[in-house]
């Protein structure tokens, strides 16, 4: 759980209109942020039921208070090196909107860290990396004490169109 509820002390300086609050988390040494209004909760990683023939980054589904919620492994999604899940590994449950449909998904991260408020004007557009680097799930970059925070566009984290059949094509390994 860490310090998810802790609010940045500089929070009060900004008005609601031109800034947003972000929950940040650690992933492979970098700090990422998701809009806090999208966050439904944070919970430990429980047993995940795998779903056949889905992209590797989709770990499977879990039971969230009676709802079936898919869980994605953000390290795999970003093609980062996989690590063993440990005691700080958590699932951040967020609401995402994809092609007009609202879904609840869980994202597995190394651990949550802070809640920051960023003014819109202090959020930079992600730089152009060229065609090789996909930036569709990047919303922008912000910094806290010289440290970079990568803000994520949750809505583009999962492409549900590439998931269709449990038995079609070669099995994923």
């Amino acid at each position, binding site marked *: 759980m860490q310090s998810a509820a802790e609010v940045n002390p500089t929070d009060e300086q900004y008005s609601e209109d031109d800034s947003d609050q972000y929950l940040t988390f650690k992933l492979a040494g970098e700090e990422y942020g998701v809009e806090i209004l999208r966050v439904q909760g944070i919970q430990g990683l429980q047993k995940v039921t795998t779903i*056949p023939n*889905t992209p590797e980054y989709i770990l499977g589904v879990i*039971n969230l208070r009676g709802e*079936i919620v*898919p869980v994605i492994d953000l390290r795999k999604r970003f093609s980062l090196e996989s690590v063993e899940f440990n005691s700080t590994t958590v699932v951040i449950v967020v609401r995402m909107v994809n092609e007009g449909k609202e*879904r609840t998904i869980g994202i597995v991260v190394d651990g949550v860290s802070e809640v920051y408020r960023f003014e819109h004007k202090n959020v930079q557009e992600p730089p152009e990396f060229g065609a090789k680097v996909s930036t569709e799930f990047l919303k922008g970059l912000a910094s806290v004490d010289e440290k970079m925070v990568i803000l994520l566009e949750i809505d583009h984290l999962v492409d549900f169109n590439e*998931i269709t059949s*449990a*038995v079609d094509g*070669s099995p994923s390994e």
Partner: protein
Amino acid sequence: MSEFELDEITEIFLEESLEGLDTMETGLLGLEAGEADPEIMNDIFRAAHSIKGGAGTFGFMDVSEFTHGVETLLDEMRSGDRDVTPDAVQLLLRTVDRLRAMMDEIQSTGQVDASQNEELEKEITTMLESDSVAVTTPAPEPKQVSENVATEDEASNGIELLEVNNVEGAEKLQQGDTRWVIEFVPHMDMLQKGNDPLRIFKELRKLGELAVTADSSEIPQLDALVPEKCYINWKLTLVGDVSEEQIYDVFDWVLEDCDLSVEEELEWVSAEDIKAIKDDSSAQDEVKVKEPSEIAQNATPVAEKEAASKATVKNEKSSSKTVKDEKVQPAKAVKAAPKESTSIRVSIEKVDSLLNLVGELVITQSMLKRFGTEIKSEDLKDLGDGLTQLERYTRELQESVMDIRMLPISFAFNRFPRLVHDICGKLGKKVDLEVVGEQTEVDKTVLEKIGDPLVHLVRNSLDHGIEEAGMRIENGKPEVGKLTLSATQEGGNIVIRVIDDGAGINKEKLVQKAIEKGIISADDQLSDDRIHNLIFHPGFSTVDQVSDLSGRGVGMDVVRRNIKDLGGRVEVHSEIGVGTSFTIRLPLTLAILDGQLVRVGDETYIMSLLSIVETVLLKENDINDIAGRADVYQMRGEYIHIIWLKEILQGTHDRSTNREGLLVVVEADGRRVGLFVDELLDQQQVVIKNLEDNFKQIDGVSGATILGDGTVALILDIPGLLHGCLSDEASVSGNEKHAA
């Protein structure tokens, strides 16, 4: 849903209007079959009338104005001033369609696009202006009017309440005058709503000569009498140049609170009859209330009053000859008594949340059950008993809740008389539609989704199944084709059949086409059923189709897919020259499944008990390898294709080493295959949770459920699974490579 939010009352108006439109449609179609039945005519008229009224109240003036024309037309037909011609019925059916479209517009935008009404409005006006040919009403038998409701006995004991005109007016009957007999039976609480019968009668008197008879037999003993309740029924006779509408207008405020019947006396009363009435009534005024002594005699405790009043009214009717005579009058009998509704309207959200709750309860129960098998102590027996009870109650609760969702399939079947009528009109064919078992109840979700596939099947049968009348006669069949739509419950399934007595499916053409399309190879030997079922193959849904099945770009594969989505299946049987029948099997409900839990590797999966044929223990030597491509198991002479579930679901199975376990033989789409699993676990009812909500529909998986330990288990969609790994050769051979 759009941004536009309807308030609750408007929604009720829409719902009721749509019901009214259904009534009108059914009625209009009924009219067409025979001559104008006054009952039906009145139903239609009443439905139109309430839509008009409702629309006016809620400020949808366009709807109200549009309906006004329709109502006028209907009124003319009802009163016999206009023939019920097929053209008129056709026009009315189109107005029903337009009205329905308007309701949709209101639902989505809150407004009506009145510009689309013009054309129909013009047609209605034209029809209204055209010469209306009056129906010559068969002269009814002369009948007695003398025996008016109030018997002499009652009348003589009466004390005067109201001063009302005598029936003398009847003698002054003039040309154009109508004699109306109005039965006015207020509900007990009418007075409490501020409605005063006296005012109504005064209003009526302005219209013409009025005679009023009160039936006071219902009045209880004085000490049991509640002054606010209305115990009296009235029978009124109104003579004058009055239209029925005018009378109803007077009663407008109390229509909801009374049983009203307005009937026209067709036959002019003979002088003798009038005299009789006069004799009866001139002695006393017709409105009477019994004397206290009489009241005491007939007293009934107030508590029983409500129930008793109905029965009494009935007696009254049967004992009174006049009323009876009027009943058999051939035309223009009007019954305004609202039909008692035996159904309740429950918002689906409420039911769904209740269902979810029950789902949780079922989960809790399975959780408890697990402890029951693990705890070892003396309490175990009690715990077990308690659990058994919990299970029973849970199931009962569950069943009763499910029941709320069950609706008669007639909701889906109702549209077909119209559809068949329209299509036959277009095709110039004659077809009788027979609907069987429309009271069979199915889950609401099934009901909503089964409509479209059924429409396709019915259209297909009409279009391509049933032949033209000429050809039918040539083939020695009755000229009028027959289409049967039936629904029955068989075990845990609903079976819906669409049967026609048409030409049947031409096998040769079908096979030829399938070979052309590369769906089957020329030397394939297929059973008749397999051939017929080829029509569900997606390959046949292109524009270029076999001539006797076809053509509007909506393929039978869509039908099959829709039905499959509902967890059902569809089969076709056909015989050349005799007919074709489609059989749709659907689960009774979509929310709960009788499941068999199986273990494959580390995961638990669930398959529907219904799809399992049997389970066998698989030994190494039972497996035959066909040219390294597929494994089969010989079961009592039948070769069963083995599907290594672990391989297709988890991609980790090594066929060469792990060959002993259980083979669950399942049947789907008429094929049997064996699914290789590691272990059979419990059988239990599972609540089906949707994967789509937060994820996506995945072929081969029909949903998920939550097990007793809180983890998620996937429910396998057996037909989808088989389709995925059997029809697609490429993927099967891909798996072969993987296994090698």
